[in-house]
């Protein structure tokens, strides 16, 4: 049986064709992955199928029955048993799980709200599919992975048996991804259908039965059977990709960043970084491995100066900058690619050109104000060198895809004059393969040019590809260290994984 079928769908945004004559068939009872780079049109296609966006041409069939595109809507999809979980959660923090799930369709007894029934039904659903979710817990107390399970429960509770997931693993830790996949396998075993939108190919290979590869709005490949990462990647970006970064051994110089017994408090006042000391030397990449939420973010914020420290010292090239403002650290050679590019890396309303001089406007000043010619030239160069698309210096950053937004941040930070320390938080999260390759090459180039690089990443494969040395962080402490020779061992990944979970040998 066909759970979902699209025939010849075309969707335009102004002059841009996001989907060009796309046809797609999802068989019931399978996990079907739709992959492609950011901006390839995979999310748009699923929004068309779900009724969130209206296609300009084409036909839509849900469970074998045609839905007229003009009358299609998310409500219609849910009525026909098709649900979607979006990349950005739509949950209300102060409300409980049961309240969120029942929102808009609350069971009633007479005039009274009957949340107990909803909670009971939720418990049954959760037990059936092996979810570990308490219906009475408040959303804001849950981890990101748990919140995602609530989103999935929300659609299941509405009687859906075709589930569309938009980039579900983008925000999850490796352990949470495993849990999610376990849940998905149970759903499929129970006869449900899962459509997975993603760009992480190792995950596709692990869970998908069938893969549709999209590039520039078109379907370029349909793969099934034994899936191969290399083949999918080649189809996705239209050329073979090197999954390995070409990198010579490091030749470290003098210490650039030194931390001494650093202590930092987290947002809620609890100790987040506890007595951390380490050094990074010129010309080496030191990575912090850890599950998100173990103090890495606070560590980076303390080093870059946006979070006050409680104790210890931060020194940049021998100068104590523990309490120096951010701009002084930049002048001392700090470049910072923030973990959350949309909140901290970019002013989304600003143009690409303006974002490229954010915090660096001084370099383009004249006695009478900004030198617009110089700002424009700077943007042209960056767009060319870092392949920022669209190549429009005046486009607002908001209009760019995630990968291209990241290229803007990377371009600004890697071209700072006198860069000696580069701090990057999750530099390739939510970024497509082509851009990841470019960003990795640039980081290594920065290292080879003599910069000290601190890399915080939740992706062990990224750490292994880039790092010369790895520090494993768990609950605010450095619990393990691996040098280059230890990293080369086959057991390195497993050793890091153990450390991240607090299990030290």
């Amino acid at each position: 049986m066909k759970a979902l079928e699209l025939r010849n769908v075309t969707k335009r945004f102004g002059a841009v064709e996001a989907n060009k004559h796309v046809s797609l068939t999802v068989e019931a009872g399978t996990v079907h992955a739709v992959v492609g780079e950011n901006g390839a049109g995979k999310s748009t296609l699923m929004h068309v199928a779900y009724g969130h966006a209206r296609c300009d041409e084409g036909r839509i069939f849900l469970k074998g029955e045609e839905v007229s595109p003009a009358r299609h809507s998310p409500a219609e999809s849910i009525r026909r048993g098709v649900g979607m979980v979006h990349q950005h959660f739509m949950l209300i923090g102060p409300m409980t799980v049961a309240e969120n799930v029942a929102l808009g369709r609350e069971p009633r007894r007479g005039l009274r709200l009957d949340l107990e029934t909803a909670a009971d039904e939720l418990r049954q659903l959760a037990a059936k599919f092996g979810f570990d979710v308490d219906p009475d817990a408040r959303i804001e107390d849950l981890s990101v992975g748990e919140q995602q399970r609530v989103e999935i429960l929300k659609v299941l509770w509405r009687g859906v048996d075709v589930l569309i997931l938009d980039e579900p693993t983008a925000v999850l830790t490796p352990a949470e991804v495993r849990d999610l996949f376990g849940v998905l396998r149970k759903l499929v075993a129970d006869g449900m259908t899962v459509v997975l939108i993603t760009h992480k190919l190792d995950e596709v290979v692990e869970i998908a039965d069938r893969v549709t590869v999209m590039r520039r709005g078109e379907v370029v490949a349909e793969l099934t059977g034994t899936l191969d990462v290399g083949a999918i990647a080649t189809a996705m970006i239209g050329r073979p990709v090197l999954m390995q970064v070409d990198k010579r051994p490091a030749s470290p110089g003098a210490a650039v960043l030194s931390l001494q017994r650093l202590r930092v408090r987290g947002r809620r006042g609890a100790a987040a970084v506890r007595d951390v000391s380490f050094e990074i030397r010129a010309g080496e990449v030191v990575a912090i491995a850890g599950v998100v939420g173990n103090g890495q973010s606070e560590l980076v914020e303390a080093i870059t100066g946006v979070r006050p420290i409680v104790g210890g010292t931060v020194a940049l090239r021998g100068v104590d900058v523990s309490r120096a403002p951010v701009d002084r650290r930049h002048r001392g050679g700090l470049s910072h690619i923030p973990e959350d590019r949309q909140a901290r890396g970019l002013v989304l309303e600003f143009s690409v050109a303006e974002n490229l001089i954010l915090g660096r406007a001084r370099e383009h000043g004249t006695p009478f104000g900004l030198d617009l010619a110089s700002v424009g030239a700077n943007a042209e160069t960056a767009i060319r060198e870092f392949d920022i698309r669209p190549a429009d210096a005046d486009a607002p950053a908001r209009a760019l895809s995630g990968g291209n937004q990241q290229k803007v941040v990377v371009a600004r930070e890697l071209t700072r004059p006198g860069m000696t320390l580069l701090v990057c938080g999750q530099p390739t999260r939510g970024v497509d393969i082509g851009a990841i390759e470019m960003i990795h090459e640039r980081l290594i180039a920065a290292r080879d040019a003599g910069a000290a690089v601190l890399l915080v990443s939740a992706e062990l494969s990224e750490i292994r590809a880039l790092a010369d040395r790895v520090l494993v962080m768990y609950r605010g402490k450095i619990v393990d260290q691996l040098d280059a020779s230890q990293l080369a061992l086959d057991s390195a990944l497993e050793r890091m994984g153990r450390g991240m979970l607090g299990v030290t040998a």
Partner: protein
Amino acid sequence: MKREAYIVVVALLVAMAAGSVLILAFGQSPAQVYGMLMAHTWGDSYGLGQVLFKATPLVFTGLAVALAFRVGLFNIGVEGQMMVGAFATALVGASLPDGTPWVIAIVLAIGAGAVAGGALGAIPGYLRARFGAHEVINTIMLNFIAGALVLWAGRTWFFVEESTHTQTVIESARIPSLGMSGSAANLSCFLALIAAAGVWYFFERTRRGHEWRAVGESPLAAETAGIRIGRSITWAMAASGALAGAVGANFVLGYKHYFEEGIGRGMGFMGIAVALVGRNHPVGIVGAALLFGTLSQGGFAVNELVPKELVDVLQAVIILAVAATSAEVRRLATR
């Protein structure tokens, strides 16, 4: 920009339609009333002069509100900053020795107003930057304090005996009238234009303006980029207060030549509406100030046909219509 202008034009048409209904209810012809309103404002020299006189302070206060807004701050204290500034302008203008060259006299008098207004604006700015105290509450409260302080100081020390006004300013500190059939219009309306151009240039062409806009759009990104947010907020509130404080150039130096209890009252609050209708853009603000100046003067002209409160209704409908479609209002509501 096109969309913004479109919104204002639609608001204007909606307001005129609503006004027409009221005019008909009074048994008058809308065409005649609107015709009269235009004839006695833009149609004769005295009317036009009065429109310019009334629009001038609105440009200053509108710019003050807009400047703060673009840095992400809502300055409700423009009224108080304007009062304190006008008072300071009058006192300095009156205490200068006779025969001070006019350039010096006028710059000192207006400068005193700007400094006084700026200082009053800097207080809530600093409280916001240092302690996170919300500037809306603090500026509202400071309005009461400023108003009371000015009257107390005036009555205790500065008002001419048996009166509610200060000494008149020296001859050379007076800004010349534009004439215009005895209207109150004076050269300070060009100062308003210069101020508008200055605010535009600051935000669009200077480094500091770029940084302040970044603070307004995304404080986290600005902070991460090394822009000092606290400092920007304090100084932006000071600059906003200074624009409001400079307003005494119009009705003190250009018209009354002294500060009087109640002078300019309401112009500060009106500045919020001007900034809103002018979409926080200097050109829009000059246009909105002229529009409100026209309505305010036109009210007197049509008084013989319909109550002059009619124009207040027009004003209110314009503000409501613009506010309903304004992204700024939505942003405030969700803050």
